[in-house]
């Protein structure tokens, strides 16, 4: 989920809007759709700085959640907040540039992942959603305990992120009109 520049970057500097100064100061991709007077350099730069940190923190909470405070739900909310920041600073174009997918994708993917984890337990002869625990030796990370609950939690994470994205897009779009 990198902040890849939106596809619309090139053709966006048409008449009626000031020329984009993205060359001078690196600012939020997609934010050039906003009227120049309404943009805030400070906000955009700050968001550019913290966006990835917040996102990574959300992922950290997801992975750490099984043993420390956190989990898929909280992690998803934190990641969602990262997108909220992005939206506040750059409008929905900036959000679109950051996540060029339909919110339906994480929503559906998350639900499929969570349900799939439950069904996989069936395939291994367990109860629906019964946890499986494996201890793996990985080259760099050392001994890692992998639980099927992590897959389930990732599903939860994705659903929450999808919900936040969906709410931002629908309600945000409604507010921008």
């Amino acid at each position, binding site marked *: 989920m990198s902040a890849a520049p939106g*596809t*619309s970057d*090139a053709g*966006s500097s048409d008449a*009626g809007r000031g020329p984009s100064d993205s060359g001078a100061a690196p600012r939020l991709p997609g934010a050039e*759709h906003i009227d120049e007077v*309404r943009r805030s350099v400070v906000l955009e730069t700050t968001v550019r700085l913290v966006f990835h940190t917040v996102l990574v923190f959300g992922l950290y*909470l997801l992975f750490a*959640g*099984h*043993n*420390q*405070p*956190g*989990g*898929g*739900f*909280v992690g998803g*909310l*934190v990641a*969602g*907040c990262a997108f*909220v920041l992005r939206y*506040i600073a750059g409008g*929905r*174009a900036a959000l*679109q540039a950051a996540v060029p997918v*339909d*919110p*339906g994708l994480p*929503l559906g993917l*998350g*639900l499929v992942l*969570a*349900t799939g984890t*439950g069904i996989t337990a069936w395939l291994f002869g367990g109860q*629906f*959603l019964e*946890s499986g*625990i494996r201890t793996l030796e990985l080259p760099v990370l050392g001994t890692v305990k992998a*639980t099927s*609950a992590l897959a389930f*939690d990732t599903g*939860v994470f994705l*659903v*929450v992120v*999808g*919900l*936040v994205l*969906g*709410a931002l*897009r*629908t*309600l*945000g*779009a*409604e*507010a*921008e*009109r």
Partner: protein
Amino acid sequence: MLALLALHLALAFLAPAAGARLGRNVFLLVALAPAVSAVWAGAQAAAVLDGRPPVQTTAWVPGLGLSLDLRMDALSLLMVILVSGIGTLVFLYCARYFPADQAGVGRFAGVLTAFAGAMLGLVLADDLILLYVFWELTSVTSWLLIGFDDEDAESRRAAQQALLVTALGGLTMLVGFVLIAQQAGTASLSAILAEPPTGGTVAVALLLVLVGAFTKSAQVPFHPWLPSAMAAPTPVSAYLHAAAMVKAGIYLVARLAPAFAVIGLWRPVVITVGLATMLVGGWRALRQDDLKRLLAFGTVSQLGFLMVLLGAGTREAALAGAALLLAHGLFKATLFLTVGVIDHSTGSRNLRELSGVGRRMPVLAVAATLAALSMAGVPPLLGFISKEAAYEAFLHGSGPDLVVFAVLFLGSVLTAAYSARFLWGAFVAKPGVAPTEVHTPSPGLLAPVVVLGAAGLLLGLAPQGADPLVQAYADSYGMPPEVEHLALWHGLTAALGWSALTLLLGAALFARREPVLSMQRRAGRVLGLVDAGRSYASTLTLLDRLALRVTVLVQTGSLPVYLGTVLVTVVVLPGSALLLATQITGDLRAWDRPLQAVVAVVITVAAVATARAHRRFTAVLTIGAVGYGIAVLFVLQGGPDLALTQFLIETLTLVLFMFVLRRLPANFTRQSMRTGQGVRLAISLAVGTFVTAAVLVSGQARTAPPASQAYLDQSLPDGGGRNVVNVVLVDFRGFDTLGEITVLVVAAMGIASLVLAGRSRRSPRAEGETSLTAATGQALDEPGTPAPERVG
């Protein structure tokens, strides 16, 4: 037997796909299901007549005591012959009836097969609940079949009428079934019939069951759905409305009558309704110009006849009824299929337009004539034999029996007359009407008609073929000393004389058809006041109005009223229980740490500020403060997970609130602040008190050891995690979480559709934007299109 039902189901699911490839020949494939059933039933016939009915029991929902009990005795066998035997022929007929390029033929074949399966299950079911399930399945599938032509408003209306009427009856019947099963202590049909429960409850239950039977079998006053249902394709009429579905009510009455005819009002109700139906149907049939409607009213009339015979509860009447059941299935299906052929070959089924069709289609004319004569009761056809038996059953009784006989006689005269009208209308060359253009039907279309028509003749000439089956059913009334067999010739009996008189009067009624018609019209003006079809329509209108009234009353559209209703309910119901049941005891601490008190004060201040805020923005901020305050309390209690979640949710809520606030006025209106302030204050205080008390009481109401200790103990070994909260979420209560995230997904879709639907109503420009993507602004993806501006 279960395998047969499964075969129907499998073919029904297969049919839509097969239909795309095979076209109308898909019917040849799905005809396999009824054909196999019919062959199987034939193979079992010897055992059934011997008194060894095949029985099959499969557990279904053991927890509820439900099982798939199937059983085929003589009556079921008779019905299987109708359902699957005639069914097979109708399926074959379908394969040539529809045009080769008919759209949706696979779907139709699938539904028809599903119907055949449901009907088969209905007549085989040996359990009241199972019977009810199949009963409703036939209602639903017939709704789909009648409404096959779903672009035609008339079809849809007819389908809806059939569904509403039969489903209403079905539900009433279910209540009756439940009452009977309660009284009997079992839902098994054969067990109930072996030891029928008695008493007032059963008498009432039987009346409820009869409502179901009456609606399904189109008895007065529920009959109008059947003529309306003629909007269906003709094979559907032949199958559902002659052989199968409308016989379900008759079957139920025939099934219950041996045990229950003597209880309560059964006999008077069944006989009165049946006789009324017979007369109304015959009378209306006599004035129809549409051949199909003529047959439909004729069917109504015959169903009334069957209802009387099979519901009367005597062995003789039941014998006649069973014979008529078979005869009617044969001749009415033939006649419906005949109308289908005529419609197919001439493009009309109006008997005023048709002329000289008989000469152009002699084979069809002969088959139809056999069937119509059987319907009229002319020897040597099966219809004659069954009517003789019916006359015989009532002719020798006392006063009430003779009244019944008189009405049956009158009904049969009408039947003879409309049979003649049908033949005349369909086939005879009429003076002054140009001979109808006919294109010759294919032999595949004619064959089923001929087979059905010939069967009526064969069984008439050799009634020994049907006799054992009919006797076996009649034996459920006990064995009489002297068995009356079905026969073509009983000697010169009184019944024979009445039969001759019936035909004579029927012929006379037909000969003077024009004066009769004008008399009917005059009478119709008077009788029109009690038109059952119109009362159906006005009932629906009444229902609509009532629904509207209730909706207006309950759904005011005012958010404060909704919220108030919910809160008052909370206070009144659980609140009063709380007051009655418990009192607060034990030691109560004001706080664990003083900091909690400080936070509580902050929360309270923020809450009061929210209530007093004039600006919406202020209210959102202060309510956010309440939320953060609660999160701090969680931290103080040592719940980092909860606190973290609460903080994040609060933050997101704030942001989303901002979006919404941009579209709302900055201030609350003065009016909305003032109205009902006292009431609102009272409700708020009551809810607050209730919640506080509930928390205090429920905290002390523990009777079992807390579950949390087990969670703490099991978290690491079972869930593989040290964070109990998370392990509970993803493992111990994982199923709950799965449900919750499903709710989240639904909520996301709900937000999108609510917002977008509201938008497209406001600006038609945005129409069609209905998906989640819609709001992402597709303009961004198209270079050159100006991006939507931000409007402050």
